[in-house]
């Protein structure tokens, strides 16, 4: 019987104040989302001005010695050459965020261009581009990124490019589908009837509306970009040591796994918490945007 009365209660009477209040209460910020947001804010501060948070120089060798356990002088201990792990983690926020945001921005830009081209181009352009996208989607992201690394070489910026390249097809497909939906929308037809030029219709109506759902999806995928970049870094293809970068801290630390596991757990958890925080905030955004759309 509950199955019957649930939909009735859920039908919103758009003007009723109680319904609105109920919806706003449902939109209240969940504690998990708040926690994730606070973590991300801390991360951004650490990326912008690491000196404010980091107790020490991330590259300075500490006189206290190597492999120190967490203690008052070094809250997260020291690494194999006596550098302060906490300071290195804080300084590692910047490359991580640059990678996540940079790779996602690059991929969204590339994907949008391709998707737009396929969506508004002729049948031949669309056919060719989308077959290429199909080919790229048949190869796992990481392998695609590895091919790019093989061709362009290792290093921080190449890893960013490789991660971006691997997710271009994903965005291209979404943008193209979205362009097809928007193109048939009444407002586009109206704009065309009003005599707007093709490029004006695309720039003013098709593009903005096709991109809207992309923003939320891209937010969630920032986490994937960070994880993929860290994986490549861990495989020894990214930033070389001794830079304070989480992936390369892990790939160095693994040599000492049997005598100092804590040194590994810290950057590992930093990466995971970052991905988790981005995912949680991104999902919350998606939930909200879906609510608005319906």
């Amino acid at each position, binding site marked *: 019987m509950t199955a019957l009365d649930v939909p009735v209660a859920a039908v919103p009477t758009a003007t009723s104040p109680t319904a609105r209040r109920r919806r706003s209460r449902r939109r209240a910020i969940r504690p998990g989302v708040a926690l994730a947001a606070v973590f991300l804010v801390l991360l951004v501060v650490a990326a912008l001005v690491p000196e404010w948070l980091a107790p020490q120089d991330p590259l300075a060798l500490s006189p206290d010695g190597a492999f120190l356990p967490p203690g008052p002088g070094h809250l997260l201990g020291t690494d194999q050459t006596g550098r302060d792990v906490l300071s290195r983690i804080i300084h590692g926020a910047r490359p991580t965020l640059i990678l996540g945001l940079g790779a996602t921005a690059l991929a969204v830009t590339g994907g949008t261009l391709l998707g737009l081209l396929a969506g508004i181009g002729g049948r031949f352009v669309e056919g060719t581009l989308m077959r290429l996208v199909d080919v790229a989607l048949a190869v796992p992201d990481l392998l695609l990124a590895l091919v790019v690394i093989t061709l362009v070489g290792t290093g921080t910026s190449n890893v960013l490019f490789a991660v971006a390249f691997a997710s271009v097809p994903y965005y291209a497909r979404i943008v193209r589908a979205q362009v097809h939906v928007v193109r048939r929308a009444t407002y586009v037809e109206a704009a065309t009837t009003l005599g707007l030029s093709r490029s004006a219709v695309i720039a003013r109506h098709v593009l903005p509306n096709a991109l809207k759902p992309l923003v939320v999806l891209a937010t969630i995928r920032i986490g994937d970009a960070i994880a993929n970049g860290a994986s490549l870094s*861990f495989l020894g293809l990214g930033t070389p040591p001794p830079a304070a970068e989480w992936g390369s801290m892990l790939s160095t630390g693994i040599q000492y796994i049997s005598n100092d596991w804590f040194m590994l757990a810290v950057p590992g958890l930093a990466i*995971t918490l970052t991905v988790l925080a981005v995912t949680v905030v991104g999902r919350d955004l998606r939930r909200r945007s879906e609510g608005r759309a319906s």
Partner: protein
Amino acid sequence: MAARAERARAQVRRIGARVLAGVGVLWGAATLSFLALHATAGDAALATVAGDGANPTQAVLERVRQDYGLDLPLHRQYLNYLGNLLTGDLGESYQQRISVTRAIGEQLGPTVALALSAALLALVLAVTVAVFTAGRRRWVRSTASGVEVVIASFPTFVLGLLLLIVFSFRTGWFPVSGNDGFSALVLPAVTLALPIAAVLGQVLRAELEDVLEQPFILTARTRGMRDTAVRVRHALRHALIQIVTMSGYMIGTLLGGAVITETLFVRRGVGQLMLTAVTTKDIPLVLGVVLFAAAVYVVVNLVVDIVYGLVDPRVVTA
């Protein structure tokens, strides 16, 4: 009778179209791979002759170019390349001096064992958790989905490292690395399986909850069927069909994850081979592994697609 023949014809048409699309993807992948090889082949002859630091004479270079068909016009090289692929010849590795096909073949066994056991484990975990948590009280569901979100956020190598620290270095239950026997397979397989299980579990629970609302579930319940039986015998069957569509995601994660897992646990396999090829810039080997991965993806998806259509006739008409 006519209707059945009509349906069979639709079925064949659908399968034919899928096969064509799959062949198209592989052809595209082969073409791109050829272009990449060609664009980087400037010193391919050099690399083949002796690797870095070699200083072969012009005559030797010419011979090598001729041997590998590098002196032919581009379209001939392309056709030769495609022809070789059709016979299973992926070319020659620059570094290992053996055919790429053989290099992959030698490493395939351990990777297949790893991927299959991880896939199986992921499915079992996801199904078990979903069946027991779908449509339960709020806190059960939110705990399960919270744990799944956290696990799905772990990059493969971090998860593997944590498992290594806890189960190898702290407790000594499993070996740290290697290929020997079942116990060496456990940690890598769990590492690979957990994130997949988390994602599958989320999809499966949502699907199960949808199915549990259906009238036929109510009918089964009114007949006096036990809750667990309803979930397993009726709901799960429908929800599993949905899981089949996730096969593409699973293959991608398994193959990509194999590179990480095999490196982390120092296991032999195609993933290791790929990483070695990347670090030594062995382009034919890298592209060979990628083509192989694409072929696996296409074939598995094709099989899944065909089976899906046979199990669920609605797909054909849709």
